[in-house]
């Protein structure tokens, strides 16, 4: 039942609609223009698939795509596994390192990304490490880790401990109990964390920008370069494809959104 009335309803609906237009207009225009048969951003010159074909044949984009996926996959894997362990440790309320861990996990979340980028760039330079895939991967794991711990921890907070007792009561030893009861029930939280880590990794520009080396590009880095170089139309097509992928992922992962949003 909708119990909103006059003032609220009018104000809300107007502003809500306005906000939606605001959120979607640039995206929609970009998608439309990705089919525009014109080298520069300009008026409508006719429909073409040309830029999508260019995209498929562009070796650099294919490489950047592969790099992005590789980094996202590996950083998701590592941060989710470590995050699961960390969340399990935090479950023990009498754990003496609880406060330390909580603080350590919390600070990276609230600091501007640029600080993490700068600090890592200096860290690598200080150690004379050659920047590239590995340095990007480490940076991505670092910022995904906090999100992973927090999302999984929140899933564990309401965990009914009597289920574990029931399992032991029925003869399952602690390992069996973990793998047959605890882990399956933690799974939604772990998947939510993985999804978030994956998205964050794909999304990241600034930290990658600071930690990557010559020749190792991810898609956001490539897109940013493309914008500066002015190869706009290919970028339009690439962006549209990435938005399409986003929509697909968002729809496929609908049931995990609550868990993610709750702890943003």
């Amino acid at each position: 039942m909708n119990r909103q009335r006059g003032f609220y309803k009018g104000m809300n609906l107007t502003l809500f609609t306005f906000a939606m237009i605001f959120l979607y207009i640039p995206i929609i225009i970009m998608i439309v223009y990705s089919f525009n048969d014109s080298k520069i951003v300009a008026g409508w010159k006719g429909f073409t698939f040309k830029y999508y074909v260019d995209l498929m044949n562009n070796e650099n984009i294919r490489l950047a795509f592969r790099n992005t996926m590789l980094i996202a996959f590996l950083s998701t894997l590592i941060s989710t596994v470590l995050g699961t362990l960390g969340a399990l440790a935090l479950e023990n309320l009498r754990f003496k390192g609880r406060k330390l861990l909580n603080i350590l996990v919390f600070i990276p979340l609230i600091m501007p990304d640029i600080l993490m980028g700068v600090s890592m760039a200096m860290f690598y330079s200080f150690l004379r490490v050659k920047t590239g895939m590995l340095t990007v991967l480490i940076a991505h794991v670092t910022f995904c880790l906090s999100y992973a711990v927090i999302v999984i921890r929140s899933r564990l907070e309401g965990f009914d401990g009597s289920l574990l007792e029931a399992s032991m009561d029925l003869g399952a030893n602690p390992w069996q109990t973990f793998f047959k009861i605890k882990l399956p029930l933690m799974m939604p939280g772990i998947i939510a964390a993985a999804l978030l880590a994956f998205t964050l990794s794909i999304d990241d520009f600034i930290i990658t920008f600071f930690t990557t080396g010559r020749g190792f590009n991810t898609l956001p880095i490539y897109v940013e370069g493309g914008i500066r170089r002015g190869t706009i139309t290919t970028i339009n097509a690439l962006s549209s494809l990435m938005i399409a992928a986003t929509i697909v992922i968002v729809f496929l992962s609908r049931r995990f959104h609550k868990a993610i949003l709750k702890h943003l």
Partner: protein
Amino acid sequence: MPISISEQRLDEKRNTRSWILSAPVIIWLVIFFLIPYLIIFLYSFLTTNVYDVQFRFSLDAFRQVFRPIYLKPFLLAFRLATITTALCLILGYPVAYHIARSSQKMKNYLLLLIIIPFWTNFVIRIFSWRVFLSANGVLNETLMYFNLIDEPLRLLRTDLAVILVTVYVYLPYMIFPLYSAIEKMDFTLLDAARDLGANEVTSFFKITLPLSREGIVAGIILVFIPALGTYVIPHLVGHQNALYIGQIITYKIKNIPRNWPLASALSLSLLILVSLILFFLTRRYKRERKVS
């Protein structure tokens, strides 16, 4: 009453297990998060030779931070963050409220509408505004088509563009915490207020707004702080003569002449600024929660 030996052992065993479980996370974050911050600290006391740092103690970097040329980017960033946060709050609140008051089924669809742009790539979202705002972009073409203007307006590479895009990028960060806070609210309170004679405007300011304070504070933190350190947005849509602190720091690291000590000192200043803002926001919030 003494705790038995076996109980004590059990407790110690659990504690050890927690240390082992958390060791990878702690070690990872200490090495790759804390130590790099320490290096920022260390570098800010060194000097530079245009290409690289020189390991010689100096307070030059800190002296430079207070020169107007470096203070102005701070002020610009602060102004941007403030305006952005205010706009996000004004625009985000009705959206969050509308979603929170919708039916369960509707809620899920509306949330999806917010999530899709939110999960769309950050750089692409900024890029889409360039398509929209550029001299021969959609907005100018449309305005010219209807003869509202004679020649293209300069929309891109202005402060306005930076603010618009920053609001655009961070709006979802405001909407989500607001939404969770408003959704938790007991809406019968509004009926009660109406019953007691409050009109809708009064009940909004006396009931809805105070009860969603937790979400407002979270939203402000989530928008203000990243907006303060933004680099990509002004870099791609901002005016070349109005540099924000994020840009200065980046250029001092990436572009020659490099000045890493200065970049470190500026980063450190940003860090302190952020910490102060966080301290201020959460302290007020804590005190208010204690009172209520």
